[in-house]
């Protein structure tokens, strides 16, 4: 089977764009496609797979010194997301203009893992790092949902008892469920809204503190996101990266 059979022009490119849209900056908790990190995306024919079966992606970051572990995760996740697409037989994903681009690109292409890409400088893969930032993403989202509830007149003293079923449908609620799944928390309607990292109930006396910290996390993450967007524009100019198909709906961060 080839990607070209019965496929309208541009369909593979759109599929790649959607796949890249599922890759998030772990720190900023936003898709790399929204952040402007996709500098180039092109599809081409390969001998083995025929038309539109080869994909080339070039990624870029706001600074030359962005942390190499997060950079690695984005390049590796982008590579994996494209490779999983049916009909794609050749994947070339690389990071540009970064101090560790050479190590990261070679490591991702060879499937060497993070420790294999930085021999002698890393002691483990990045699962723990990813988990830490998924916890932060969950907390930031919890604050968004909480603010929404407060706007609707909820009082903080009953929040320890609130269950997911009590939270009205909203974009924030769907986002929260996804982030709960990411960190292994229950999404059962009977599950409590405010829980600790292990999913245990938070005593009512500590709920306010937990939510206050969630707010600090949200302020931090949203601020970092805006700063990174600004630096990327300063570095490369506005409107220089790849964009998705016109009129495409974007998920709220």
């Amino acid at each position, binding site marked *: 089977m080839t990607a070209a059979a019965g496929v309208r022009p541009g369909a593979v490119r759109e599929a790649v764009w959607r796949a890249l849209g599922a890759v998030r900056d772990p720190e900023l908790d936003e898709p790399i496609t929204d952040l402007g990190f996709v500098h180039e995306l092109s599809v081409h024919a390969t001998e083995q797979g025929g038309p539109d079966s080869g994909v080339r992606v070039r990624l870029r970051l706001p600074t030359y010194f962005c*942390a190499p572990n997060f950079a690695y995760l984005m390049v590796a996740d982008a590579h994996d997301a494209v490779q999983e697409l049916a009909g794609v037989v050749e994947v070339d994903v690389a990071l540009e203009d970064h101090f560790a681009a050479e190590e990261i690109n070679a490591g991702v292409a060879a499937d060497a893992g993070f420790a294999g890409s930085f021999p*002698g400088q890393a002691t483990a893969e990045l699962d723990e790092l990813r988990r830490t930032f998924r916890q932060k993403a969950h907390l930031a989202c919890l604050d968004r949902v909480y603010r929404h509830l407060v706007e609707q007149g909820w009082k903080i003293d009953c929040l320890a008892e609130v269950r997911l079923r009590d939270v009205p449908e909203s974009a924030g609620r769907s986002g929260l469920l996804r982030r709960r799944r990411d960190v292994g928390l229950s999404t059962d309607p009977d599950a409590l809204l405010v829980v600790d990292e292990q999913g245990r109930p938070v005593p009512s006396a500590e709920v306010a503190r937990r939510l206050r910290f969630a707010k600090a996390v949200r302020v931090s993450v949203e601020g970092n996101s805006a700063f990174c967007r600004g630096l990327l524009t300063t570095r490369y100019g506005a409107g220089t990266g790849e964009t998705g198909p016109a009129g495409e709906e974007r998920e709220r961060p």
Partner: protein
Amino acid sequence: MYAKDGENYFVVDSHIHFWDGTPANQRNRYGEGFTNCFYDYHKNLSPEEYLWSPEKFAAYTEQDLVRDLFEEGHVDVGIFQPTYLTDFYINGFNTTERNGAVAERHPGRLIANGAFDPRDGEGGLEAFDRQAARWNLKGVKLYTAEWKGESKGYKLTDPWCYRYLERCEQLGIRNIHIHKGPTIYPLNRDAFDVADVDDVATAFPDLNFIIEHVGLPRLEDFCWIATQEPNVYGGLSVAMPFIHTRPRYFAQIIGELLYWLDENRLTFSSDYAIWHPKWLVEKFVDFQIPEDMQAEYGVLTTDVKKKILGLNAARLYDLEVPASVTASMNGGSRVAGAVPA
């Protein structure tokens, strides 16, 4: 001193540099990348009328610094925070020696802080003693992401770091400025994590730990630690310039910091020459939390602004504050703790 609406403000810019970022001093592509990165910070957040060319940014002069800080920038005292980066720059980026030479020509106006690197071990301790004596150090700046050969950084909890912090205690160097960066050993950890600050702040209760850039990009972790450790402070460089481009975000940062810490543990800084202190000082004195956010964050009083702009750093560095600054404050000069012993 800055005067506005009948109030006097004593301004201590607690994070400034006198660097050489020129191509001639760049040892490799990392040095080039570092200078460019700093320049993008400058370009991204400065008002247009304060933008420099990349050439001037890499090689401003002592005359520029003196004019920008003291003649135009309202600064009373500036504190140099060295950044060695000798793996990136042939003569270092801005060393204690380079800063100190300027400081000695402007006595009473400039303070040169020192630095140590725990990876220098025993021999480094002796060199640190000499540095402390030569420059009469009251503070040091540590950059935990500093590269040193194969090493891409260190943690404050590394055993040799404890040895150096003990030496700081012995030498009476009480102000430990911490700057986190993008790399650390091991690389799989979050390099910006400030958890090690928690440990050393508990282990060394007589030292003050001033976390530069208020822990950004980990503002929340910084707040969480600082609320529990009374000897942890927040340096506002990098946070300050948002006051121009994103004042509502700046209000949130200040609001969070005042909630988790208090008004006595935040210090103003420009990170000169990344940003010019003139507009930062003027905008901060004029700044107020937007009305629709005041229920959440309260308001910034004149007293709070005075403390952040200079009185808190004056306390850390035993600087004499003119009585005209503290006279109108609630609690007078006691609040500032500004009368030198």
